[in-house]
């Protein structure tokens, strides 16, 4: 919990950390109509996929900084050595990361849905699916971020490691939004997303903690 508060405080004080991924999200979504053409019918069909893929990429972008700063100034080493269960501290850190970079994406997404001509019925599902999806993306992505923590430049490598693992989240997330746009039932998609959230929140801290221990040992 302390870790959570500390990370929140740090994030609030450095605006770039949470603002940049958000801007990235907006700009990428803006690029699609420019690249494909502004026809509303076309945009409405691709909107769920575009919004979801852009959110996914924005999350990847923000993951880079998750452990890197703490690793550089030695905080991470202190955490590993402190004797408190590392998995719990990791849980706090990743939750903070989600609140900082996941939640703003969720809150901003209806506005971008508007730009993408998303059908009205889909907004609630868009919010719900992104809410669940970004949460699990934070946890899955944190595994990758922890694995490459001792590297100086890991941005591309991080995406290479994490993106294949995020495929299920993307499928069910954009699937839910697309189904809602066509007026279909979305509960199946959302329950699958929920299942992925539970699975990733409960299991990935173990992998993250293990990877951080390795990283800290290798960095010394």
């Amino acid at each position, binding site marked *: 919990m302390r870790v959570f508060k500390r990370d929140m405080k740090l994030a609030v004080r450095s605006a770039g950390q949470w603002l940049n991924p958000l801007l990235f999200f907006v700009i990428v979504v803006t690029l699609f109509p420019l690249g494909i053409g502004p026809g509303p019918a076309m945009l409405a069909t691709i909107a769920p996929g575009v919004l979801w893929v852009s959110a996914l990429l924005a999350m990847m972008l923000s993951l880079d900084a998750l452990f890197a700063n703490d690793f550089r100034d030695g905080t991470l080493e202190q955490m590993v050595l402190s004797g408190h269960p590392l998995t719990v501290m990791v849980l706090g850190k990743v939750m903070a990361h989600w609140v900082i970079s996941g939640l703003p994406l969720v809150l901003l997404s209806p506005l971008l849905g508007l730009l993408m001509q998303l059908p009205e019925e889909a907004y609630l599902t868009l919010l719900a699916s992104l809410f669940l999806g970004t949460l699990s993306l934070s946890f899955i992505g944190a595994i990758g971020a922890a694995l490459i923590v001792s590297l100086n430049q890991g941005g591309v490598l991080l995406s290479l*490691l994490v993106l*294949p693992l995020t*495929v299920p989240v993307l499928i069910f997330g954009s699937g839910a939004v697309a189904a809602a746009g066509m007026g279909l039932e979305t509960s199946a998609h959302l329950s699958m997303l929920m299942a992925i959230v539970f*699975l990733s929140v409960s299991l990935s801290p173990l992998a993250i903690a293990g*990877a951080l221990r390795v*990283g800290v040992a290798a960095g010394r």
Partner: protein
Amino acid sequence: MYRLAGRLAPWFGGLCLLSLALGLYLGLVVAPADYEQGDSYRIIYIHVPAAWMSMFVYVVMATSSAIFLIWRLKIADVVAEASAPIGAAFTAVALLTGSFWGKPMWGTWWIWDARLTSELLLLFLYLGYMALRGALDTPQGSARAAAILAVVGVVNIPIIHFSVEWWNTLHQPATISKLDKPSMHISMLRPLLLMVLAFQMLYFHNLMVRLRTLILTRESRASWVAELNPETGN
């Protein structure tokens, strides 16, 4: 282990050649042409074994990674490291031959079929694993980090596979239905099984050869390596 691998390698290699020759002969010459697909079905003798091995090798890799994480057995890590490129090669072969077969049969090199997609993602997982290994320079750190990634990957593979399958059935229901597989005639099945055996042996042979190289590289400062005969390597 080094010596054992050296002794086993020719046996696996020999068995591989033997079953390969027999399997290819039975598959390409003896087995009849398929009444629907003609001769082009014969690519399954390469395609199916490669696809099986692509998954088998990943399981081997993840299992040995888990063994390495739990018991800190160094040789398990060497096995995982040696397996990764071989598995990636099998995956690439499966994808390539699959698209060669898909061109005459489905009329397209690539469709977003569930199996194709998950095989492609498997290739990405292999490549990510190898990239992570290459990027971390300390052997100690890279070994355990890569092992964690392999284990995470094997937990994810079934999830990825089923989600992809579901995605596919949602989006394009039976535009190109998978060809019904009648239970194979024995004259076609026998070469297929032989080819699977051949690919398995090929993997073990390559694994043994790579194990020897990797052990030598890692232990290059140990005294027993210095005492090896440079001519025979034993």
